[in-house]
C-alpha cells in the first residue's frame, strides 16, 4: 500500500450532470493525487456533493470523463468505484454500518456481502486482519465489540478501516468533522495524516476553514457547478476562498438590514423540557434578530419546539408582551403570534405532495373561507402574492411543493406564515440544504421581517451566518444558553469555543 509521495493521479474532466433540466454540474474539473489531502469547498448547491457522488458511482454523469493515471475509468455503480479503490466515508456513519454486528464483521462487510473470497469464514483470521487495519489507524477499538456500543467517532474510524481493508487509493470524507468534538476531530486529523503518508489520496469536504487550512495540501472551490479555484494551500487565503465560494465577500452577499429595536416582546425564563433543554433564559425585542448558536445536538431544535408549543415544557416561564403564556399545541402559539419554520423542512415545514397554493394558504384557512367554504380565488391570490414577494421559483402555484428546490421549499415554509399576523418568527436552521441564491433571499426576508417590527429567533449551527445576521447572540451548549454576545463583540472563534467547551469554558 505504500507508494511514493506522488502516487496515482485521479482526474475528473468536464463532468456535466443535470437534474430535471437544471444543471448541477457544468463541465466541472477536479483532480486529486495519491498522498495528498485535498479540500473540496463550495456553498450548498455548488455541486460538490454531486461531483463526489459521480466519483463514488452513486450517480452517472451526463458528460465528461474520469481518468486514473491518464487511463479512462468507467464508473457506473458504487461497486465499480470501490473496485477501483475509490471509497467514501459518509457523514451519516450509521447508514453504512450494521449496528448488531461486531467491529471486525463490519470492517469486512463489503467483502462478505459481495461473496468474494472463500465460502467459509475463519473468525480468528478476520479478527486478526481487522486488528491489523485498525492498528494502521492507531485506533484502539476492540474488534469483537458491537458497533452499537461505539461512539460516533469510533464508528467513523471503523468506516475508514473498512476503506483501508478494501485497498482504497482514494477516500472521500464528506464533512467528517461536523459531528465530532474538538478532541475527536484532532484524532481524525492524525488518521488522515497517516493515510496521506501511506499514499492514499484524501478528498476532504468541510465548511470549517481553519481546519482546512491546517490539514489540506490543495484546495478546490466550486461554485454554480464549476471549479472556480484550485490552488495549493500557500497560494491562497481564507478570505480568498470565501470570495470564490460566494463570488462576493460575505458582507456584500448578505448585507444586513438594520432595524430599530422596539419594545420587549418575549421573555423566556429557565425554560426546560426535562431532557435536552435544561435552562433557556433570554429576551427578544421588536425589530431584533436574536441568534441562538450551538453545535448539532445542543438542544436548539428542542428549544424552538418548546417555544412553539409543539412539545410540553417541564419548567420555566414564557412571557409574551408582558403576559405569561402556556401553549398546549402549536395552534395556540400561532394564535398568540409565534410561528416556527422547522428544521425538518420536507417532513414538517411543508406538505410535499400538496401544491404550492395549498401550502401557502395552510395557516390562514379561516381567512380564506366564507361559511366554511374555501374561496379558491382568494387562495390563489394569496399564493401568487407570496410567490412574488418571496421570489419563489415555481412553474406554477399548482406545482407540488416537494418538487421545488430546497431553497424554494424553504421559502414556501416561510411564506405560509407571512399572511398571519405573527409577531415572533422562530427559524430553526433555515439555510440547511439551501443554495446560495436562495440563502441570500432568505436573509433578506428575515431582515425585512425585523424591519417591520417582528422579533426573530434564529437558531443555527452555522457560526458565520449567525455572526452575519444576528443583533445579539446566545451560545447554546448542552441545553443551556451559557453566554450572550452583542454582535460587535463576538468572533467566530469565541462562539465556537463556548459552543464546544460549554460550562467548563465559563469556570
Amino acid at each position: 500500500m505504500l507508494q511514493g509521495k506522488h502516487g496515482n493521479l485521479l482526474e475528473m474532466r468536464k463532468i456535466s450532470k443535470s437534474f430535471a433540466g437544471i444543471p448541477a454540474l457544468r463541465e466541472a474539473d477536479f483532480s486529486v493525487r495519491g498522498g495528498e489531502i485535498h479540500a473540496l469547498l463550495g456553498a450548498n448547491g455548488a455541486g460538490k456533493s454531486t461531483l463526489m457522488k459521480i466519483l463514488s458511482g452513486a450517480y452517472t454523469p451526463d458528460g465528461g470523463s474520469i481518468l486514473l493515471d491518464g487511463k479512462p475509468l468507467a464508473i457506473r455503480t458504487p461497486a465499480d468505484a470501490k473496485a477501483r479503490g475509490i471509497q467514501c466515508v459518509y457523514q451519516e456513519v450509521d447508514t453504512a454500518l450494521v449496528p448488531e454486528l461486531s467491529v471486525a464483521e463490519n470492517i469486512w462487510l463489503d467483502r462478505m456481502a459481495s461473496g468474494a473470497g472463500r465460502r467459509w469464514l475463519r473468525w480468528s483470521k478476520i479478527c486478526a486482519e481487522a486488528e491489523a487495519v485498525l492498528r494502521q489507524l492507531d485506533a484502539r477499538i476492540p474488534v469483537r465489540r458491537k458497533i452499537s456500543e461505539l461512539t460516533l467517532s469510533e464508528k467513523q474510524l471503523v468506516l475508514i478501516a473498512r476503506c483501508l481493508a478494501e485497498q482504497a487509493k482514494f477516500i472521500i470524507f464528506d464533512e467528517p468533522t461536523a459531528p465530532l468534538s474538538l478532541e475527536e476531530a484532532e484524532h481524525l486529523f492524525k488518521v488522515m495524516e497517516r493515510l496521506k503518508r501511506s499514499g492514499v489520496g484524501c478528498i476532504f469536504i468541510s465548511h470549517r476553514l481553519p481546519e482546512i487550512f491546517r490539514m489540506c495540501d490543495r484546495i478546490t472551490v466550486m461554485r454554480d457547478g464549476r471549479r472556480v479555484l484550485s490552488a495549493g494551500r500557500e497560494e491562497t487565503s481564507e478570505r480568498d476562498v470565501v470570495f470564490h465560494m460566494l463570488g462576493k465577500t460575505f458582507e456584500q452577499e448578505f448585507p444586513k438590514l438594520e432595524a430599530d429595536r422596539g419594545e420587549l416582546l418575549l421573555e423566556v425564563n429557565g425554560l426546560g423540557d426535562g431532557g435536552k433543554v435544561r435552562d433557556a433564559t433570554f429576551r427578544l425585542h421588536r425589530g431584533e434578530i436574536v441568534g441562538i448558536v450551538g453545535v448539532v445536538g445542543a438542544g436548539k431544535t428542542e428549544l424552538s419546539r418548546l417555544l412553539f408549543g409543539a412539545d410540553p415544557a417541564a419548567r420555566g416561564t414564557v412571557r409574551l408582551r408582558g403576559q405569561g403564556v402556556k401553549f398546549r399545541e402549536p395552534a395556540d402559539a400561532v394564535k398568540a403570534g409565534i410561528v416556527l419554520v422547522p428544521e425538518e423542512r420536507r417532513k414538517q415545514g411543508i406538505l410535499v405532495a400538496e401544491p404550492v397554493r395549498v401550502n401557502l394558504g395552510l395557516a390562514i384557512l379561516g381567512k380564506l373561507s366564507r361559511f366554511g367554504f374555501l374561496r379558491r380565488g382568494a387562495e390563489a391570490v394569496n399564493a401568487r402574492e407570496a410567490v412574488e414577494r418571496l421570489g419563489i421559483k415555481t412553474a406554477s402555484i399548482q406545482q407540488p411543493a416537494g418538487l421545488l428546490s430546497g431553497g424554494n421549499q424553504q421559502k414556501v415554509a416561510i411564506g405560509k406564515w407571512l399572511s398571519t399576523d405573527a409577531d415572533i418568527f422562530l427559524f430553526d436552521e433555515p439555510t440547511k440544504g439551501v443554495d446560495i441564491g436562495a440563502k441570500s433571499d432568505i436573509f433578506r426576508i428575515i431582515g425585512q421581517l425585523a424591519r417591520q417590527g417582528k422579533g426573530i429567533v434564529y437558531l443555527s449551527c452555522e457560526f458565520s451566518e449567525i455572526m452575519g445576521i444576528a443583533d445579539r447572540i446566545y451560545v447554546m451548549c448542552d441545553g443551556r444558553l451559557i453566554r450572550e454576545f452583542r454582535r460587535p463583540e463576538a468572533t467566530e472563534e469565541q462562539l465556537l469555543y463556548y459552543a464546544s467547551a460549554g460550562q467548563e469554558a465559563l469556570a
Partner: protein
Amino acid sequence: MKDKLLNFFFRYGTILVIVAVVAFFSFRLEYFFTYGNLADILRSISIVMFVAIGVTFSLIVDGFDLSVGSTVSLSTVISASLMVWYQQPLYIVILVPLLTGAVVGLINAFLIVRIRIPDLFATLAMMYIIDGVHRTYTKGYSVYDNMQMSDGSKAPGHFTEAFKWIGQGEWLGIPVPVVLMLVAVIAVHIFLTYTRWGRQMYITGGNREAARLSGLRVNRVRMLAYVLSGLFAAFAGILFASFVGSGQVDAGSPLLMESVAAVFVGFSVFGAGKPNVAGTFLGAVLIGVLLNGLTMMNLEYYAQPIVKGVVLVLALAVTFVQLNRRRA
C-alpha cells in the same frame, strides 16, 4: 406514448372496468339493463355505502375505524326497540341511534387521540364492546313487531309506516335509500373538496406533524372524523332496520369489510391514490354490479366473497403500482 397510455389506464381504469362490466352483463342478460334492476343494484349498495362514507372519513385522517360494523348493529336494534318496545315517535327513533353513533365516535376519538392507543387496537376493542352491548340490550334476540318479551308479554309497538318508508319507499319513482345515498355522497364530496374542514382532514391525514406545526388543531380534526364515522354507521343501521322491517341482531358485522373494500377500490378511481367519496361510491357500484350480474348468471352466494376479494386485489394493485411509480 407508453407512459401516456399507462397514465390513462391508471386514471380511468376503474371506470372503464365498470363500463365494461355493465356492457357485458347488458349483452348477456336480458333483464340486467332495466330500470328496475339498476335501481335494485343501487338500493342494494345504499346501506354499505353509508358505512363506507364513515370509513372514508377515518381513512382520510390516516386512521381506521373497525367498530363501524358493530355500530350498525347497535343502531339497528336501538331504532327497532324504540318503536317496538317503547312506541316512540319517528324523530326519537332516528335521533337516538344517531346520538349513540356519535358517542361511539367520541369514545373512539378519546382512546385514539388522548390515550394514544393505535387506531386499529382501540377500535378493535370498541368493536367487541359495542357488539356485546347490542346483544345484551336485546338479550340476543332480534326485535320485530309485537315480539314475545322475556316476561311472556307481547311487545306493545310495531314498525311504523313512516319509518319503513325510509328504507322501502319510493320518491319520484326512485327508491328512497338511493336518493338518500346520492344526497349523502354529493354533500360529503362537497364537504371534503370545498370546505376548509375537508381540507384540514386531508392535510392531517397526509402529514400529521406538518399539519400540527402549521397551526392546525389536528386532534380536533381527527375527533371530527371518528364522530362522523360513527354517525354515518349509525344512519346505515337505521336504514338497515327500515329496509328489513325488523331489528336483526348482528346486522352490521359483514358490512365492515364490504365498506372497507369499497373505499379501497375507490382509491384507484381517477388515480386519486387516497380515500375520496366519489371513488368510494364507484367502488361500491362496481362490487354491487358484479354481484348482481353474477347472481343472475347463477353464481352461488357462497362464492361472492371470492368476487369481492378479487376486485379489491385488482384495484389495490392498480393504486399501489401507480403510487410507487409516482414516488420513483
